[in-house]
């Protein structure tokens, strides 16, 4: 039993909303503002949990089940996540990378169902966009993970992460870099960040993810927001696990490197959101196709390196 076994789970649960605060602070500093407190996301969650929820008469149990089951699915995904080579996931088994992908798929499925359940034209549009874009983001995620699995010979996230080291970078550096890039594209799309979506907009007609949760309130909204923060953490951790694998050394080195990496991801998101505009909605699939292409290329390259 590894002493660090529950560290990835607990740190994710505790620190995920903090990253959103970091993103906001970076954006604020680019805009010349002070910005909201770093812990604002925690305050918001606490506030929402204290509130009651409002339900439209046109909604059914699907609408109420969405946030709860969605959060449960994200939590399951988080349990499968290792934090660097020395901190294995709380729960790992051969093939758990599929469970991770499908847990994230389940969250989306439930969000979309709950959105359609409201019968609102806005939410229907958002659902249609979300499904279209994730149909492209999902292959990129799976093929990227497949490339890593092929390189390391492991079929579990913990095995893969433990199998990546400086030697794999020497052997298949370009492929790993491509995987990190593809995961970056998936990360931006799945977390509805600029340039795919604008998490701060108030314009329903341009929203993708945000418009689907317009009708949720109180604890339901808190679950969704917390789930979104965890998703940000999970997808960010996938990139970081690949990115920091060239750093050798004991847990005392790899763990700080992991957390520094997560911070860097948040700062990077803040910078991207500050220096570029959103893509036109119909151009978003092109960017996602690039993600798919990168991951396929990485998969093919891995084949060459390992052959």
């Amino acid at each position: 039993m590894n002493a660090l076994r529950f560290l990835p789970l607990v740190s994710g649960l505790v620190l995920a909303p903090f990253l959103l605060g970091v993103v906001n602070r970076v954006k604020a500093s680019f805009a010349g503002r002070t910005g909201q407190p770093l812990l604002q996301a925690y305050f918001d969650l606490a506030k929402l949990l204290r509130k009651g929820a409002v339900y439209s008469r046109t909604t059914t149990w699907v609408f109420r089940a969405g946030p709860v089951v969605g959060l449960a699915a994200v939590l399951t995904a988080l349990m499968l996540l290792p934090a660097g080579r020395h901190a294995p996931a709380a729960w790992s088994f051969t093939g758990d990378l599929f469970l991770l992908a499908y847990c994230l798929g389940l969250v989306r499925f439930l969000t979309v169902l709950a959105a359609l359940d409201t019968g609102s034209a806005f939410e229907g549009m958002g659902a249609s966009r979300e499904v279209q874009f994730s149909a492209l983001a999902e292959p990129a995620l799976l093929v990227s993970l497949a490339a890593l699995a092929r390189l390391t010979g492991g079929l579990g996230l913990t095995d893969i992460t433990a199998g990546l080291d400086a030697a794999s970078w020497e052997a298949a550096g370009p492929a790993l870099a491509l995987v990190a890039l593809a995961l970056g594209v998936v990360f931006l799309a799945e977390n509805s960040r600029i340039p795919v979506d604008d998490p701060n907009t108030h314009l329903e007609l341009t929203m993708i993810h945000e418009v689907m949760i317009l009708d949720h309130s109180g604890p339901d909204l808190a679950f969704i927001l917390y789930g979104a923060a965890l998703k940000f953490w999970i997808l960010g951790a996938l990139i970081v696990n690949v990115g920091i694998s060239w750093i050798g050394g004991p847990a005392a080195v790899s763990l700080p490197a992991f957390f520094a990496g997560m911070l860097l991801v948040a700062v990077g998101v803040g910078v991207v959101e500050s220096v570029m505009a959103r893509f036109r909605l119909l151009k978003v699939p092109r960017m996602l196709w690039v993600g798919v292409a990168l991951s396929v290329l990485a998969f093919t390259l891995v084949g060459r390196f390992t052959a």
Partner: protein
Amino acid sequence: MSEWRNPCAIPLAAIADLSVWDFQDCLSVGLMKGAQLLTLFGVPAPEDTVRLFALLGHPGNGTIEPFATVVKNSFLSLSPIHPQVQLFERELAEKWRIKPQGHPWFKPVRFERPSRDGADLWEAQPAACGTADFFRLGGEEVHEVAVGPVHAGIIEPGHFRFQCHGETVYHLEILLGYQHRGIERALVGGPGPRALHYMETAAGDTTCGHATAFCQALEAARGVELPPRGRVLRGVALELERMANHIGDLGALAGDVGFLPTQAFCGRIRGDVLNLTARLCGNRFGRGFVRPGGVAFDAEPARVRELVRLLEQAFEDARGAIDLLWESGSVLARFEGTGPVSPVTATQIGLVGPAARACGLAQDVRRDYPCGIWAEAPIEVPTVATGDVFARARIRWEEIHRSSEWILDRLADLPDGPVRAPDAPAPADPWPADTLTVSLAEGWRGRICHGAVTGPDGRFLAYKLVDPSFFNWFGLAQALRDQEISDFPLCNKSFNLSYCGFDL
């Protein structure tokens, strides 16, 4: 050819009543020859009839041509040939129960109470605001999206109905009237002491524009000559208003595409420019500054020096923030080709102001119908050819640039003397009897037209305001054709029209 120029007071005796047929013929021929329909409105006439006044502007030689006719219940609609007449005709139907026969899309404009007894042209008039039929696209895969009148931001109410197939918008219909306050009705029998305040609040962000148009009309009617210093300061207030709004709009456009730096900085710089207006008169929106006979407050030399310094600084800040827009590919990719309006459409629907200049139409009241300071110190009129969101953004920057230069030039040699004519009339004094007074001003959104008709006692029989938004809302609907519905907020912001300026 008419000799009337902006602003002018035309004795009603000089305007012959044409037959309805001749009236329409004159309008139609004039519009075909490139004249602009400045305004079209009705005044109650004896024997339960309505006298219609139409004003055609000839931008080529700066003249204004008045036409009048008397109608009873209906006339043949000009809208099928000249779409820019369509809203005026619907307005006449709503206010005076005169039916434009053959109007292609006959709906109420603002859901206001009719000013004349007679048969209802719509069932159950006055209908509750927003109750009207919309154009609908048929087909199983088509979906209809309704937005508003309650919006997700702190903006004014308006209803937008999209007919979409997937993300593509085939048709957008805009329904307004929620902000109708009855300004024109309140002015009948006036001017009262509140007339000028109505003007300043007709469209809150166009305070100086409407106040200038009103004061010009009053001065033309009473033959008041402005002192040079007052003329300049009035022009400065109008240009500061233009700069502030354009800078704010560019920031908002950046915000809509998620481009943070320009959004954040422009929001601040707009405030800086509004504060310059506050330095002139104590109010950031210029309330209480433009007054009949000149302006209410003088700017002493120290204040002028301070204004110049702050304006130069604000302009440099604006240049830094706005240049970022033109330098980032992701912003240009979003702006270019989005929401285009062709010059032909723009001409047909009578687009005005920056929206028209963004379609390559060089039209500007300051140049086409110059008066006051604009006759002495002309300003260059830029145009951009592409007619898309980029053009509407770019034209704003060009105008900010020119307005800033113009203000600095004027302040550099500010004439001495009083700022207000000694014989300035009070806003509530009666105007000359039996006169049609016309005044045009280029507000920051475009051409503002005020037309006043006085009766034998010098009181208003009608006071007609035409805000640029009156023409341009239809332009926004046109710009959305075959565009993505997700681009609507961006297109909307690129026009940034006034709801209350339309609803009056």
